[in-house]
């Protein structure tokens, strides 16, 4: 192997590491309602879309600002929600594939969430699970999101569980560009999120 080939291989390892961090950093910002920071993790020019649970599809960087900044951050208002409201999203099991030219990548993750949200007048604690199939781009030496799709497997009350109550309620956002593209929670979730990667042995 010559130095150029070796450099390429090192680059690939660095890229995977950086993308994994990007995804986890997204989670650490999300946990603390740092929506401006999240908007900045997305490519300005090449962002495709964001789709979270049944909120609907938001296209382009404009759509990304609309969901995270205008809606989640209330347009930059000081946070109104009480401190007991919590979203802990654990970013688990990343499988990252970088394109041969090293400028694009895809990643599958799963997430385990511990949340507390108001339902009407009542605070509820809940368990959630979901899968990401995301896309990334390298621009000016840095990795950014171009597409984020989080598919919710279940969103269940702490007390009842996924078998008894797989989905606590619908949450479509009126400002979405399109309705959700693939929202089928437990028990209709099977094979709902296609794999971006090929089987490592059979190649299928």
């Amino acid at each position, binding site marked *: 192997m010559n130095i150029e080939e070796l450099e390429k291989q090192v680059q690939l390892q660095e890229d*995977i590491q950086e993308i994994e961090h990007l995804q986890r950093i997204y989670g650490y910002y999300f946990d603390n309602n740092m929506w401006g920071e999240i908007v900045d993790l997305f490519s300005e020019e090449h962002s495709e879309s964001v789709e979270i649970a049944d909120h609907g599809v938001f296209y382009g960087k404009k759509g990304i600002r609309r969901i995270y900044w205008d809606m989640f951050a209330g347009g930059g208002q000081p946070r109104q929600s009480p401190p007991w409201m919590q979203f802990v999203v654990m970013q688990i*099991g990343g499988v990252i594939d970088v394109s041969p030219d090293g400028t694009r990548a895809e990643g599958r993750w*799963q997430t*385990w969430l511990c949340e507390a949200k108001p339902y009407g007048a009542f605070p509820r604690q809940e368990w959630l699970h979901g899968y990401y199939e995301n896309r990334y781009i390298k621009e000016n030496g840095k990795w950014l999101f171009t597409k984020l799709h989080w598919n919710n497997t*279940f969103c269940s009350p702490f007390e009842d569980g*996924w*078998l008894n109550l797989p989905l606590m309620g619908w949450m479509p956002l009126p400002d979405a560009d399109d309705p959700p593209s693939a929202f089928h929670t437990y*028990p209709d979730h099977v094979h709902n999120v296609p794999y971006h990667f090929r089987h490592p*042995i059979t190649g299928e």
Partner: protein
Amino acid sequence: MDLEELEKQVTYLEDINEIENLQKMYGYYFDNAMFQEVIDLFSENTESVEITDHGVFRGKGAVVRMYGGMVGMKRPGWMFFEVMQSQGVIHISTDGRTATGRWYTPSFECRPFGGTKKQTWQFGVYDNEYIKENGRWYFKKLHWNLTYWTSFERGFLKVPRLSDTPFPHADAPATAYHPYPSGYRVPYPFKHPVTGE
């Protein structure tokens, strides 16, 4: 450092990444009941598979016996196993041909119990081995140790395990089945990174 040494170090990092992906993909195939894909992740020279108290299944033929019955089997959507492959620690042998990996697995499940459906929490530890053949990493040995398997409603303190599940067609009984609260510690495949012990 010369080029050859550098190449070795790069290969080492690639190997760790590939093994981590292998383990995570096992999880992603398992959760959608893609058992042929799971079987294909195992080496022809597989030593054994041992899951909870199902018993030991030796050799690739036994891997097929273990998972093969479930290939193509229609599973109702409510019956599910979300096993989160977490916190892998991978060690590669000095010759770069075999490796060990320890992982944690919190999981959500739902299974039939008699005529009823039961939602459960499960937790366990993998102590796995991998082998590199023809430039690719495969499972050589998979051993999942159950810590607890409890009902969603009651929790591991009250119900550490819901039932025993030995498989009649195993080659040998389980080698290390000691659920909570036994205090059993699955042996670490790795040495202490600082003291080397």
